[in-house]
């Protein structure tokens, strides 16, 4: 007994290739370094902490990005199970790794002003972002439910804190509480689903039962033989529900507006981009992996999910005037469009690339909107309404243009990158024969023009005298802020004018 156990352990550790996870490990080390600096320099060097923590984190991200791009082969061995089947690397999850570093980098960049202004502790915030970045990067490489669950919880627990970070603000606390309760619930459902699958697949009475009911490949072969089994279906559905919560698919979207509104703006952007992207990617991996044989059962459910999500997101966003709730609701509709690509990936292999392309453009355009929101430097973003954008262009043309480009790209206006992404997504949906869903998606896009353009209009609209103006009279940007905005504007436009350029990065 003991022997076989040590043999098993030895066998597993043979495939422990720690070097592959170096980027994640580096990020985690930097996270602890930042915490350490904060701890040991407690009393005397406040200024030092205020000034240098941020650059350390930013340099860390840039370093990790650099090694991921330049030394790709060191951290990437294709299609072999590492760590005894816990980790599996593919081209697409390597892309997602860089994606999350980008996202975290942007969040860090836009969080500085907010943290200083509200005099919130910087070190904790940066620490949590770094850790959840590492969590996200691991999450997309998981090929085992245990590692998946651990990574997911690493990220989610970090988010519980990040959402409620502004402890003095009632809305932020309320959002934190709601996110904690509902997140806990969704985790419970997810875990329940995983356990059901583990239990049924390990049952010796089942056809083709397996030892390791958490491992994706093993599960795939088991479910392939037992796709009609009630418990298998129930387990898969529960797992799906748990993931849907992260993406914000109807009917698991109910937390989105409240939490987005209350969360600090940088956290909201991290939640909107990284959390959603991770959810979508994990969903594709599950559907193409363990749940492949359940297509007949899952496709109708996913289609209904997609229809409901697109319609709900868009319809409830029309007439919504609170900016952060609007971002949350329109984000729900984007998740719905993405689901189109997820469903298409059953039949069309390129659909995965298209989804990744869409996610990248969603990241760039969203951050353009979020960065301009953060740089406006408002007293309280949570109460900001579309009409408060009035006169933004007059007050600061660069911010006005940045918001315009970001919103227009989210709306899918040519020739911006968001347009190309939507067109590609709709083309794969067409090729996959999802005509009904396509029609719904197009209706959704038409509805979305309504609220996106109302928003755009107010940017260029000159406010009335009597209008209570939430924006500051004069908005000035620092040089790095200008550079960030210009880079984002440039990349969103360039992605529309010359989309093949992205091939160099993928």
């Amino acid at each position, binding site marked *: 007994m003991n022997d076989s156990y040590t043999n098993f352990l030895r066998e597993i550790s043979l495939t422990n290739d720690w070097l592959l996870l170096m980027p994640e490990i580096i990020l985690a080390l930097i996270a602890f370094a930042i915490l350490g600096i904060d701890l040991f320099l407690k009393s005397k060097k406040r200024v030092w902490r205020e000034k240098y923590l941020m650059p350390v984190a930013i340099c860390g991200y840039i370093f990790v990005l650099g090694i991921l791009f330049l030394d790709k082969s060191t951290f990437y061995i294709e299609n072999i199970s590492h760590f005894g089947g816990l980790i599996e690397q593919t081209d697409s999850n390597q892309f997602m790794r860089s994606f999350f570093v980008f996202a975290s980098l942007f969040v860090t960049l836009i969080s500085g002003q907010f943290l200083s202004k509200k005099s919130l502790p910087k070190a904790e915030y940066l620490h949590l972002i770094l850790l959840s970045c590492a969590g996200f990067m691991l999450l997309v490489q998981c090929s085992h439910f245990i590692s998946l669950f651990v990574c997911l919880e690493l990220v989610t627990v970090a988010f519980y804190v990040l959402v409620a970070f502004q402890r003095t603000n009632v809305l932020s606390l309320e959002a934190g509480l709601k996110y904690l309760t509902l997140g806990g619930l969704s985790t419970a459902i997810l875990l329940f689903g995983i356990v059901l699958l583990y239990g049924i697949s390990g049952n010796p009475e089942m056809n083709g039962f397996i030892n390791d009911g958490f491992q994706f490949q093993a599960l795939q072969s088991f479910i392939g033989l037992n796709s009609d089994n009630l418990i298998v279906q129930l387990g898969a559905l529960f797992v799906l529900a748990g993931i849907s919560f992260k993406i914000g698919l109807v009917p698991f979207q*109910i937390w989105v507006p409240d939490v987005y509104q209350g969360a600090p703006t940088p956290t909201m952007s991290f939640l909107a981009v990284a959390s959603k992207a991770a959810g979508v990617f994990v969903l594709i991996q599950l559907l193409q992996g363990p749940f492949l044989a359940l297509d007949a059962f899952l496709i109708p459910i996913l289609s209904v999910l997609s229809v409901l999500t697109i319609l709900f997101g868009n319809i409830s966003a029309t007439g*919504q005037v609170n900016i952060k709730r609007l971002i949350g609701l329109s984000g729900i509709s984007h998740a719905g469009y993405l689901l189109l690509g997820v469903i298409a990936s059953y039949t069309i292999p390129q659909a995965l690339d298209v989804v990744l392309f869409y996610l990248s453009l969603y990241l760039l355009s969203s951050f353009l909107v979020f960065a301009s929101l953060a740089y406006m430097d408002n007293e309280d973003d949570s109460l900001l309404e579309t009409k408060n954008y009035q006169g933004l262009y007059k007050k600061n043309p660069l911010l006005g243009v940045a918001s315009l480009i970001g919103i227009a790209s989210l709306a899918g206006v040519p020739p911006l990158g968001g347009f190309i992404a939507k067109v590609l997504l709709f083309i794969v949906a067409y090729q996959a024969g999802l005509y009904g869903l396509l029609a719904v998606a197009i209706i959704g896009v038409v509805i979305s023009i309504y609220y996106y353009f109302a928003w755009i209009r107010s940017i260029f609209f000159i406010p009335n005298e009597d209008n209570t103006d939430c924006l500051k009279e004069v908005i000035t940007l620092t040089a790095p802020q200008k550079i960030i905005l210009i880079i984002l504007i440039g990349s969103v436009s360039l992605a529309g004018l010359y989309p093949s350029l992205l091939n160099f990065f993928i």
Partner: protein
Amino acid sequence: MDILTNLLSLLFLPLGTSILIIALGKHRKKYAPIVAFMSAIGALSLSYILLKNLPESVHYSWEWLAFGDSKFYIGILLDNIGATMLAMVSIVALCIVTFSIGYMSDDAAKGRFFAGVAFFMFSMTGIILADNLIMIFLFWELVGFSSYLLIGHYFQKEEAKSASQKAFIVNRIGDFGFLIGIILTYWQFGTTNIELLSIQSGIDPSLMSTFIGFLLICGFIGKSAQFPLHVWLPDAMAGPTPVSALIHAATMVAAGIYLLIRIDFILTSQVLLFIAYSGTFVALFAGFCAFAQDDIKRILAYSTLSQLGYMAAIFGMGYSGIALFHLITHAFFKALLFLGAGAVIHACHHEQSIFKMGGLFKKMPITSITFIIGTLALCGVYGFSGFYSKDSILIAANDYNSTLFYFLVFGAFMTAGYMGRLIWIVFFGKANSEAASSAHEVSAVMTVPLILLSGFAIFVGLNAYWPFGLGASIVSDLDHLHHLSGYKEIHKWVLILGSAAWIVGLGVSLIFYGKGSSEDRLQLKFPKVFAFLKGRLWVDELYQYYVNHIQKPVAEFLSFVDEVILRGIIVRGGAGLVGVLGVGFRLLQVGKINNYVLWFFVGLLLFWLYGIDLF
């Protein structure tokens, strides 16, 4: 520098210049002219290096968007025809930018002007280098846009504002046809790449379609101001004169002809026939109209129309090389004439009516001599550049169809006639206004480009001496003419008629109008004829009538439909429905966490039921 870098820097240098000028902010006024001038010099040297190293033709292609099996490409194609255009555009642009430094010296919005000119150069270079119809169309729209901006440069004036709008709208009509043509071409051939189109139409001529051809030449009709879309060009003279010289005489209007030459292989014989006849018509019609104008720039604008008619006519007769030849010679002498007119206008304190000028020869000798050189080139006087191209046009026309030939010869008489009228009245006799009597020679920054361009106006007709083997298609077309049966007889006959045309035209106009007259004698002696010519076949009035009596009621009806049915019922109704649903959905967002949890479980349950086909 390798050729690709050279091409790309040539394309993006003007764009960068334009952005740089805008980014200069409040220093714009001071630095814009020098930045634009340096960029024009840079562009000319880049073209020089490029043309020196250019093999017969280069083609680069990049994947724009790959999607599964369908791939879309963008690319650069530079062959001999494009290289010839490029050389012409770079030289003319440099002369005109230099001239503008003087002409626009007291303008308040110099920055906008030079940024616009640089942006125009970017778009024009784009048209020349594009390797497919879609890219041509994009740059085509960009030149239209920059032309719109520059015509409306003096937007404080009502005239300039409406002229820029007119140019924009009329061009959209042509471009709409062009766009449909491009879409149908893609449908028919499966590509819009010019080289592939040429190969495919060569392999399978049955793919060519007269209908598509007519749609494609809509773009040409709009941009080159051919009948019936010619109405915008005379009005476009409301822009600054250097713009008229660059865009509305030398380059942009010629882009229509360039487009024809690029796609000549997919135009069927019916389309060519139509182009030949409509070109001849415009050549004559515009010549007539020029007699009834008293604005120096408008006379030149009608002359441009008429010369574009010549180019179209010869293209329709199947000699695209000679069309290119006339395009190039015309670009130089017409740019010269416009800049000369600009110098005159500048000296006369923005007086544009020729009857208020007079006697300028003694006051502005350099401008006058260069202007007269331009006129002689335009009239096709032996030895000047216009002679060579017009001579070959007439020879070819004689071979093609004798009716068209006589019309075109008559057009040559008219050209000499209206240009003679302009010369005698403006430069000779006595000054007819205070502004004209106080006029004096313009500064060197304006005369040097005039002198340079007059050199080109004299010598550019000697195409055998062009460097870098430019204009190869011209040589081959001329060779073809030289080997026609009875070439010697025809040539003699054309020479006699052509010389008679300018001698008679200039002479009769001298006798009829007299030197430096202050009023239009045609108007005095034959008011009816003058009124008829002034009416310009009432095309503008026809459009006005159409807009007022046909389009307006239709628009009002559509607006009613839009107001009541579309906006009232469908959109408002739809928005209302969406709004109500939105309110309903928001009610779900009660904010109570126990409700949220319940909602969560109900959702899960429903999905379960749906998944196992319970409903």
